């Protein structure tokens, strides 16, 4: 098992390396760091701008291959992912923002999985009952709402609630208020900031789990072994719970394992709408600001977490499913 994981990890690492370097070239080609300085007053000459970019290894006069080599060695030797065109360290940014994203997404992921799987199981066992039909209809609609629409609806509702309650208790911008002091107030403040985006993310997230869990379980309900279990004297409900459900949960577990690392890459649109400075927003900002190094680091980070997710999913499957256990 350990050897299997190491072998897989090595394969992934190779692919991440290739993907990251490809992204570097693509980003260097498509992003223009000079634009960060063009709007500045006093107006600078092109040469001045290039000179300002030089310390950050972004000088366009330098051949691309040289810049890449410098970047590559600094990443491999010092794990230094470079600086933004304005001189901010990418490592520091990613480190901070990944935690902000995690704060935002972990709760939403847990809620999504719990609500989605529970709903999926509940409705699959009552296929075509009214609870199934209604939740199915709701989920189909929610599944098709663009994230931006959902987030804005939550914003709208939160503001409406605030106005209705006559006090400002739900925050729809930022991850905390700037002027809160003390431990408990800080925690309380952060929690209040957390509620609306979490609601939005959970709304978007539970649907997938609900619909897939429902159809996985329905597919398993027809399996011969469920009938065998009934023939040994279990009621249909017991046979479903003990035999079909356990089997149908394996793919879901793998899928949860897969999505866990994604909490660190955040949620682009939700963070944008709610103004959280997480990885998602960082990704938008790096591109908007023509930050080559930031964008590449985001890409590498995402690829690495995808790989971790895939390996976790493998491990989860092997752990839960005796059929694929490596002998």
């Amino acid at each position, binding site marked *: 098992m350990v050897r299997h994981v190491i*072998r897989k990890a090595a*394969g992934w690492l190779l692919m991440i390396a290739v993907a990251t370097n490809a992204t570097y070239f693509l980003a260097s080609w498509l992003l223009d760091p000079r634009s960060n300085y063009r709007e500045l007053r006093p107006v600078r000459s092109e040469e001045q701008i290039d000179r300002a970019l030089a310390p950050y290894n972004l000088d366009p006069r330098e051949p691309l291959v040289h810049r890449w080599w410098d970047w590559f060695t600094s990443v491999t030797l010092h794990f230094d992912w470079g600086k933004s065109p304005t001189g901010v360290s990418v490592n520091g940014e990613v480190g901070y923002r990944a935690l902000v994203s995690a704060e935002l997404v972990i709760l939403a992921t847990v809620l999504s999985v719990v609500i989605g799987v529970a709903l999926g199981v509940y409705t699959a066992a009552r296929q075509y009952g009214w609870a199934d039909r209604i939740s199915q209809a709701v989920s189909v609609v929610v599944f098709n709402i663009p994230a931006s629409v959902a987030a804005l609806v939550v914003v709208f509702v939160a503001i409406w609630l605030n106005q209705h309650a006559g006090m400002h208790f739900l925050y729809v911008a930022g991850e905390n208020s700037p002027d809160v002091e003390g431990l408990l107030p800080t925690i309380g403040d952060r929690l209040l900031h957390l509620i609306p985006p979490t609601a939005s993310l959970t709304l978007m997230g539970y649907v997938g789990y609900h619909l897939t869990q429902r159809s996985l379980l329905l597919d398993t309900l027809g*399996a*011969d*072994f*469920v*009938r*065998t*279990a*009934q*023939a*040994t*004297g*279990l*009621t*249909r*409900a*017991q046979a479903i719970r*003990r*035999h079909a459900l*356990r*089997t149908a949960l*394996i793919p879901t577990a793998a899928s949860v394992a897969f999505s866990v690392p994604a909490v660190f890459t955040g949620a682009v649109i939700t963070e944008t709408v709610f103004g959280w400075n997480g990885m998602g927003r960082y990704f938008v900002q790096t591109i908007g600001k023509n930050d080559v190094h930031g964008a590449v680091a985001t890409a590498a980070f995402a690829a690495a977490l995808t790989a971790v997710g895939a390996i976790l999913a493998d491990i989860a499957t092997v752990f*839960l*499913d*005796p*059929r694929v256990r490596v002998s």
Partner: protein
Amino acid sequence: MTLATPQLDPASHEGARPVLSVRDLRVTFPSEAGPVQAVRGVGFDLMPGRTLCVVGESGSGKSATAMGIMGLLPPSAGLSGRVLLEGQDLVGLDDRALSRIRGRSIGMVFQDPLSALTPIYSVGRLLSDALRVHQDLTRRAAWEQAVQLLDLVGIPDPRGRAAAFPHEFSGGMRQRVVIALAIANRPAVLVADEPTTALDVTVQAQILDVLRLAQRETGAGLVLITHDLGVVAGHADDVAVMYAGRFVEHADVTELFRRPAMPYTARLLAAVPTVDGGTRRPLVPIGGEPPALVDLPGGCPFAPRCAVALDACRTAEPELRQVPGHGEVACLRATEIADGSLDPKRDAAPVEPRSPEGRAAAGEVVLRVEDLVKTFPITKGAVLKRRIGTLHAVGGVGFELRAGETLALVGESGSGKTTTLLEILRLARPEGGRIEIAGTDVGTLDSAAAVRRLRRDVQIVMQDPLGALDPRMPVFHSLAEPLRAIGRDRAAVRTRVGELLALVGLDAAIGDRFPAALSGGQRQRVGIARALATEPKLLALDEPLSALDVSVQAGVINLLTRLKRELGLAYLVVAHDLAVVRYVSDRIAVMYLGHIVETGDTEAIFADPRHPYTRALLSAIPIPDPGRERTRERVVLTGEPPNAARPPEGCVFVDRCPLYREAGEELKRRCRTERPAQTAVPGSPGHRYACHAV
């Protein structure tokens, strides 16, 4: 191991109360075309310790009957009638009440052991769960009982294997586990739905023995559902023949086989091929197809296929009624048939036996195979595959086939027979050895054009007639495809397709139909017609009959025989069923683990089988005659075919060989270390076998 099948239990069951009484059971399924009346009023009594075999062809409603009794039909199905189990009516009980009965009073063995066990639990866990549903046992006590049950059904090393998961067992072993599950709580009634259909014939014999043992241990009444009349002959006390959702004959097993009183039963018995000794009797095809169970017209459903039907048969469906000294029969003319004054097979033409002059007419060599070798890599991993072993599918097979001749490759699954066939059809240089088709060594074919030319000479008929036809292509296009592939123009294709349909006895109108709209027999005829499109010299037939019902089989055998005679074809048949093979082939090669262990003329093999494997194979096939089936000496093989990844160094059969076990030290050593050479049987030209011990 040689054992005689026990005689019918003579214990009288007079006065005993039936453990299971079914009255007027009806099952309907909704369908696109209207409700399918799968079961239309079935009734019987089952005495404790007795076996009722329900026999019928596909679609006769026998599985639906079983599920109806168990209360395991899908919710959309409609169920009515009465199922009295130990006096309690199961129809109309809710799931909770039924669950208290299922597993405790009535157990079930399912058809497909591969999917019948929950993959994520160990078999010990499955068994102890089944025990604890109905009995108040500690985990440990339940586990102990589970181990005992595994031992009872013949799982070697039951204590160790209890912790293993279903996928770590072979099909036969899994079916033993399913049987153990069914008898765990010593039910009064066992229902077994085609328990051996998915298994090899030698394993089938083992499983049927286990079932018999389980029944003896528990004293349960057994409802055994099967399509195999041989199994019926060997195991039934009473037999019920199902046709179109009803019992059409229900009688004592010896009576039924001795003198079937329902024309359908009589015709079925006449159509089933057998392996038993003496001369081969001719097969009589029934003709026609069973009716669809949607909107059945009035009258006897068998009347359209019946040779002795009266006008009255077509107006009202006959009730099942008592025929003196026989049992119950649903036929207006049962009394006449039972007293021998009417032959229900009247006017039916028997299958022509293989023409004796066939051998003499055998012409040029169409196919010569020498030392054919084929291995497959065993790999692991999906993205980065690595090879972890080699599967020796075929190891040094050689034979010759002449025009007008039929050679059958026979063996269990995994014996390499189909691989051999596919290697020949591949028309590429084999991994080892030589293949020569119509005088051309396929290894020397150097251009795609040459391969295409040779393709015309070799064609294949596949096992599953439905799977072999593209579901989205009408029959006409399926037949036209090989012709277009060799570049025929539109007009030529149209004429040839017409000829082909006529050749296999199909109506030209069938050309517009999709395969799903054809019956099994029609599909197989289309498959044969397509294979004949390019006028091949050699036809490879991969289990051409195994997917067909008995009543249809005989007709296809007939067709194949006629085509061979008319077109001078050579057939290479792959089959697992020696009984069928006997009717189609001139010569037989018995394969085991990639090697031919015995070869010879069909009659020589049947009359004087030499190799212990051939003998075992022959004796594993049940004979549809209760008298002979229950008295004959049987060679029952233990175990299952070994893994072809590690074939034994010496004789490939050594692990399961009954002779090896009785052999002396010196012989044992030879069997283990030395591959036996082919030995000729004196006085029987062409009959050879590979065994040290014979």
